[in-house]
């Protein structure tokens, strides 16, 4: 598989074409908006956290295939879990994205494993991590 095919795996293209949990969220308790200075892209993440659980989460904004797919997959994985679990996932994903291109791919990253290819594209790691960084800001800031 070429580096490009590894980067734009079917899972990523699928989430880019048909993002899950896109749009605005009514009754959000937490939100944040972050710019990607590399390209002027911007993403907003909203979450509704009740009784220590992420009941609902949504994102909207403009971005490349990598940032949109990462946001989409992120929402599917943190929904229903605790904010702490979301933070742990963000940290694990960030380590993964910054690891050596041929390092082992952690099992517990679920669909985020599709981002293995971005490890060969230094300038694009920031695109992959944008959504998680936005979510972390939302969790830190509240509404």
């Amino acid at each position, binding site marked *: 598989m070429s580096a*490009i095919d590894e980067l*734009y795996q079917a899972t990523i*293209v699928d989430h880019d*074409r048909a993002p899950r949990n896109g749009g605005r969220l009514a009754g959000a308790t937490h939100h944040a908006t972050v710019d990607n200075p*590399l390209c*002027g*892209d911007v993403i907003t993440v909203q979450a509704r956290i009740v009784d220590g659980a992420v009941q609902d989460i949504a994102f909207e904004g403009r971005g*490349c*295939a*990598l940032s949109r797919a990462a946001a989409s997959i992120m929402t599917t994985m943190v929904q229903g879990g605790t904010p702490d679990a979301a933070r742990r996932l963000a940290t694990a994903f960030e380590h993964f994205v910054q690891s050596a291109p041929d390092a082992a791919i952690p099992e517990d990253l679920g669909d985020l494993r599709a981002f293995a290819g971005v490890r060969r594209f230094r300038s694009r790691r920031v695109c992959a991590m944008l959504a998680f960084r936005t979510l972390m800001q939302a969790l830190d800031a509240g509404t």
Partner: protein
Amino acid sequence: MCAREWRRARLREVALDTEALRREFPALDTPVHGRRLAYLDSASTALKPRAVIDAVVRVFTHEAGNVHRGVHALSEAATEAFDAARDEIARFIGGRPDEIVLTRGTTEAVNLIAHSWGRAHVGPGDVVIATALEHHSNLVPWQVLCAERGATLRIAPVDDGGRLELAAFAALLDDRVKLVAVSQLSNVVGTIAPIAQIAALAHAAGALVVVDGAQAVAHLAVDVAALGCDFYAFSGHKLFAPTGTGVLWGRRAVLAEMPAWQTGGEMVAAVDYGRARLREPPHRFEAGTPNIAGVIGLAAAIRYLATIDRAAVARHEARLHRRLVDELTAQRGVRVLGDPEAAVVAFTVAGAHPHDIATIVDRDGVAIRSGHHCAEPLHHRLGVDASVRASLAHYNDDADVDALIASLARVREVLS
């Protein structure tokens, strides 16, 4: 000889030997991801010819002293080459050596004007005009200056083709306007601004004119006297010279009245513990040890350009640019931004983000820029958030255009 034969003979005579030209640029010899490099990003930074690389190596090998400070051999050799460089730069754009301020680049040149001339001449209620085409480097310094001085920044509009609307610009002029900032060749839409007309209108209103020549200087024959502007700024690195070099040309009478901005060594005539007497321009604006090797490299780039047929280069670039624009326009889903006139073409591809496009074509050896190219407001004016941009220099050829067009097909394949 019939007319057709004559035309053919003439074409042969003026055709540019791009193969020979390309051999002067070592970076073009280095494969990228195992592919022939199609370098279509010269508007970001141009590749360097061997003559420039050799000049820089020579400085560090034989002329490694500081300038204007020592009496030893290395210092004298460096000083001689450095001072000669300023003369060559002046001749290149039709100015005088004492009108050439050496800077780190266009950005520093514009900031110099804003800090020095701007703070002395722009006050509450005054107006600065920038065009809607400007690169952030010829916009943000004016935003900051106006905010600091209680002045107003007006934006001269462009039409959908990315051309300055001259009548609307003229309507913005009144006696409160102190300065007009305009780029000669847009780094996004590739349109050429009518500087002489703009300068005439601005001067009639009592305003000075700053021209951002960062893109223009590598593609158009620049003569500051003919342009009629008051300041002309450009970077060395887009002119095949080292990064960290730039030029601010300023009309002698304007420079002479300007206060210092950065201060320290090199820019003073005499100093005691209480005060300093400053030197005349251009040295007044050049505090500290300059980028000696870079400036000598810039002179080498100018000498290199003098060895090639600039008229043939202009024809070659114009033909290749036309072909690039036509081929892109014919692609399904491609939208070319504005009506590019020279050197650059920015475009979008439906369903593909510019960063994804640039990443994918890079693996085919095609280097293009993605993002907003430091012109975010202009992108919004044209109704897009970002674009990809292909830009040309004389070392580009048809194979480079072919490589980009072929790789765009790959983009569609990967992203669907």
